[in-house]
């Protein structure tokens, strides 16, 4: 269960190999006096070694919950999570610690995610202590300095406390803490969205550089496509607890297959003037339905400009459109799980 030693020689690992796979993953939060909140509700996802997978969707669609579930920081209600082929949903206490060394997380809010009572040095050293890395005071201190240097912070930050730091500096500390356990995968949960616009690019560039240098794999969460399309190899689009489209970034942004992805893209300004002129804004009508009571069939149907007959009756499957590009929409053929008899009759290929 130990992370493989990382030498420059194996730095860019063979792409394509699946590092993490989620199948039918669900996280439901019980609610007093009502149906559970289905924050994550049947997610299938693959993260390949060495890639950046962007995960986008509106606030509240379940991105953070999905990320937390991958580290078992919230307990999955159903489904499997495999890391290198091992199911992590059944891990005991000690193995869980090993999982949290191999998979790390950078949190959205750098103000809330650092303990205000601890010094930066202690915050960054904590994973070292927990996992018994760099044993001994001197070695630990040297490693903390090294980690701080990796994220562009002077060793003098070691003795400061979070409140003395700017938002960007704090998030660098958050990154250093995530790196301390020498993880393979880092879940970056909107790591720059609460930072000043002027420093967002710096932190983003830092993350990109660290990935290249350390051969890291990222699950990069963002609420809009613009933020991830330049750093992601592949993009997964999430809506109301489900992945609705996934594929290579160029395919998903250049030829979106799901109406929701198109709506997200229409909100992204295009730098190319002719393209900007033809870009039509698709304004989504209506509010996001409650994840406690998602619409029947396709969850997007209440806001979808293209909704048609089978949409309320058949829950669309994430079907392959070729080249690893997948989308869950009946416009590409009515496949999925019928929710009633009408739906069963509407299937393209009734079994």
């Amino acid at each position, binding site marked *: 269960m130990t992370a493989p030693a990382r030498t420059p020689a194996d730095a860019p690992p063979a792409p394509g190999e699946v590092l993490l796979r989620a199948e039918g993953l669900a996280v439901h939060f019980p609610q007093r006096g009502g149906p559970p909140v289905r924050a994550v509700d049947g997610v299938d996802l693959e993260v390949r070694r060495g890639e950046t997978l962007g995960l986008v969707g509106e606030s509240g669609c379940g991105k953070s919950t999905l990320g937390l579930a991958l580290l078992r920081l919230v307990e999955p209600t159903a489904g499997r999570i495999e890391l290198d082929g091992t199911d992590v949903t059944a891990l005991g206490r000690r193995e869980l610690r090993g999982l949290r060394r191999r998979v*790390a997380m950078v949190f959205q809010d750098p103000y809330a*995610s650092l303990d205000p*009572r601890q010094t930066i040095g202690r915050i960054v050293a904590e994973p070292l202590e*927990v996992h018994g890395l760099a044993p001994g005071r001197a070695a630990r201190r040297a490693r903390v300095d090294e980690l701080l240097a990796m994220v562009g912070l002077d060793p003098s930050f070691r003795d400061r406390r979070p409140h003395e730091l700017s938002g960007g500096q704090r998030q660098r500390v958050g990154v250093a803490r995530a790196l301390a*356990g020498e993880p393979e995968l880092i879940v970056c949960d909107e790591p720059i969205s609460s930072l000043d616009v002027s420093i967002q690019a710096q932190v983003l560039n830092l993350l990109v550089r660290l990935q290249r240098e350390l051969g890291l794999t990222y699950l990069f969460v963002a609420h809009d496509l613009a933020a991830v399309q330049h750093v992601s190899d592949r993009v997964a689009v999430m809506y109301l607890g489900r992945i609705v489209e996934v594929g290579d970034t160029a395919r998903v942004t250049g030829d979106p297959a799901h109406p929701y992805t198109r709506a997200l893209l229409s909100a992204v300004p295009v730098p190319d003037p002719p393209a900007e002129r033809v870009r039509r804004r698709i304004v989504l009508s209506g509010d996001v339905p409650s994840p406690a009571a998602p619409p029947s069939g396709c969850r997007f149907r209440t806001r979808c400009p293209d909704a048609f007959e089978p949409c309320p009756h058949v829950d669309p499957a994430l079907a392959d459109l070729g080249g690893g590009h997948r989308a869950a929409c009946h416009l590409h053929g009515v496949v999925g799980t019928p929710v009633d008899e009408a739906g069963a009759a509407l299937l393209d290929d009734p079994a």
Partner: protein
Amino acid sequence: MTALDDTPAGPAEAGQVAAPDEAVGARGLLRALLRNRLAAAALVVLAIFVVVAVLGERLAPYGRNEVSSADKLRAPSLEHPFGTDQLGRDVLSRVLIGAEPSLRVGLVAVGIALVAGVVLGLVAGYYRGLVDDVVMRCMDVLFAFPAILLAIAVMAIRGRGATNAMIAIGVVYTPIFARVTRASVLTVREQVFVRAARSIGAGDLRIMTRHVLPNVAAPIIVQTSISLAFAILAEAALSFIGLGTQPPEPSWGRMLADGRGFIQDAWWMAVFPGLAIFAVVLSFNVTGDALRDALDPRQRSAIESAAGRG
């Protein structure tokens, strides 16, 4: 675009405003207390109290039970500034010597309550669920009894004497520490930094002791100061009714009880130990309130913004 926006970085500003309070160390805290004149006076009284309790016997002009039958019930004079009691003992000496059992019983009792209450409150608030229900219902039951009645009940089981008084008072004040701790733990456990600690593999014990406890320390410190006041009062009350410190050892509560019978003829016998109790209890209370103000960021910023506007 609005529909696609995530929540703005609201907490950023709040984090910055609250930050200076998190930095308040012991020295900063003392400075804040001394700025408040009432608190400064209370701290002086408490400092004198501690010095007297430590030096007691050596400061006293007469021995603790030195009897002079010629000097029975003498009014305050140069020779006996606080007068003498019915056996001819010097009241000033006995008040000075009586500081030690007061402080010792108070400190030990509050120490017991602090340790037991904080551990129970921390575990209950951190784990929630069944542990929380069981622990806190037990605390509720203890809390439902009037304090002195409960202390008397404990002493009825364990017998009289100073040691049992400490245990009794400790039991009585455990629930309040458990409640104060649990209430703060409930908010701290939901903080992102706790989740972040878990994300790097930290276990429950580590999270409780290194992340939760330091962040709930402020209200516990305040409660400690206030409880010291009540514990000293409780010790005096128990000694007054004959359950606490046993004669002939000097004790403020016991002296008050003895003086009661002579209040018409020798007011000094009851008044001086009474004043000593009053001064110490009031000082601990004032210090507790001042600590609360100094440690509570909301209250402090409210005061500061009011001052700014004024």
